[in-house]
């Protein structure tokens, strides 16, 4: 079977500068280190402590503590903000796996609160209403690691330049429609292949055109991949969706509305975990798909969404 991620053997030395640490560029830093531990797993959106328990029992590697899942944020409209601290703490109390939480793009004060609470990862997320239309958070200022979304290589490298320790596709959250996540994953893969094949003298111009930090682009050329792990997010609603993203090169998947908006969240969660662990074995993914007793969330065609509600276009 053809698997995208096997595009280029990673050479030993190429690991050296991944998620570089200030003091020692030979050690993958603690922030990216946690992302390494989450590989091959499913991170599930939860809105109550009860759901967090279901997610952990189903085999989630982490939970994302939210007030509302993306599909409900779409329905409710208005301003979507960081979840109430007491909700996040309640979810942390019942979980032994890492707990992530979202803050608005550019809202570093929300991020400070999340760090104070002691969450394990902050998602500076386009799912919430942006607080700053020009600047993202300077993530180097924080001890807690950040994950950010990207549609293309330039955007991913800008976020990593600001200190993001983990990347994910933006996808189009809350739609149950995988098309945007696939677009973003393929775009980043194609751009990486292009950069890998470039002459070094062409890199500066490429960095200018992409709006990407030159040093990071150089690193991508050496590594043949992003310098931090890359996960898939946005619109994953079936075990096959998870297998698709993993075969396209995602190293883990975030599942938002897909699980707790399905008819049978427990079965659904277990099936996605199963399919992700054996993403390259169609027999296993089929078995996982058959175990679902409910049907997947209905889903939304992207062209039915009004422009201002296209979340992938938030941030730059």
């Amino acid at each position, binding site marked *: 079977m053809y698997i995208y991620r096997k595009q280029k053997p990673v050479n030993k030395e190429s690991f*050296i500068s*991944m998620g570089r640490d200030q003091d020692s560029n030979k*050690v993958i830093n603690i922030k990216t280190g946690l992302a390494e531990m989450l590989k091959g797993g499913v991170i599930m959106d939860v809105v109550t402590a009860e759901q967090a328990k279901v997610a952990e029992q189903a085999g989630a590697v982490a939970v994302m503590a939210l007030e509302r899942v993306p599909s409900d944020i779409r329905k409710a409209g208005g301003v979507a903000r960081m979840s109430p601290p007491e909700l996040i703490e309640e979810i942390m*109390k019942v979980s032994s*796996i890492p707990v992530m939480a979202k803050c608005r793009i550019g809202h570093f004060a929300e991020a400070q609160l999340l760090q104070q609470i002691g969450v394990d990862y902050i998602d500076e997320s386009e799912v919430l209403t942006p607080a700053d239309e020009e600047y993202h958070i300077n993530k180097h200022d924080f001890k807690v690691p950040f994950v950010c979304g990207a549609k293309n290589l330039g955007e991913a490298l800008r976020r990593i330049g600001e200190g993001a320790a983990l990347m994910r596709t933006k996808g189009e959250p809350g739609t149950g429609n995988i098309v945007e996540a696939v677009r973003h994953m393929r775009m980043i893969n194609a751009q990486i292949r292009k950069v890998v094949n470039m002459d070094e003298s062409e890199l500066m111009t490429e960095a200018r055109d992409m709006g990407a930090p030159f040093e990071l682009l150089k690193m991508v050329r050496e590594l043949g991949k992003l310098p931090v792990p890359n996960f898939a997010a946005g619109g994953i609603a079936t075990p096959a969706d998870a297998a698709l993203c993993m075969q396209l090169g995602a190293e883990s998947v975030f599942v938002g509305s897909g699980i707790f908006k399905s008819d049978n969240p427990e079965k659904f969660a277990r099936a996605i975990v199963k399919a992700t662990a054996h993403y390259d074995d169609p027999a296993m993914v089929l078995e996982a798909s058959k175990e679902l007793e409910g049907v997947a969330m209905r889903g939304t065609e992207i062209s039915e969404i009004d422009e201002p509600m296209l979340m992938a276009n938030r941030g730059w």
Partner: protein
Amino acid sequence: MVKHTPRIGCFALQGAVEIHRPHIEACGAEFLSVKTPARFEDVDGFILPGGESTTMLKLIETFRLWDSLADNFARKPVWGICAGTILMAETVLVNNNLSSRDQTGGQSETQKSFGLLPITVLRNGYGTQVESAQSDIDGYPVSFIRAPVIQETGDTEILARHEGAPVWVQGKGDKAKYMATTFHPELTMNFPSPMHKKFVELVRRS
């Protein structure tokens, strides 16, 4: 004694797997990532990698791998890292994310494990990610990431301590083929790490 090039299999259903490859290859051993009973038979020694122990347990149960793994572990060397240490411990106490802060604890829960080493570990013993840190063990930089704490040890050899607690242990007698580290040497790109070297030696001698 393993006469051929030792084959080290990393249990690969979830976690930090591929990152061990350059370390293992630098020791002159072969690296395999293994997920199924047929593949377990191909390897001379196992790495139980860092990741989430609850997820690994769930997947072991889902895919009915417990018996086949236990049978292989009885015959071959095993090295558990972080989550892997938890899977190898005789007793596991579960610390939920805020229990170090609120006095109510939450440490009474236990979780299933293979019980290969006579140790008691407390999950997330240092706290959440903001407590994660780097340190030097035997002059080699390593990372503690949401690490467990080994609270008690039975008949074991303590190869390294950190802040007073054992962080690198090896069994004795029949169990000398088992070792566990609560930290991650694999995230350091100086190949091979002393821990990978030690484990490949264990496999060669077994």
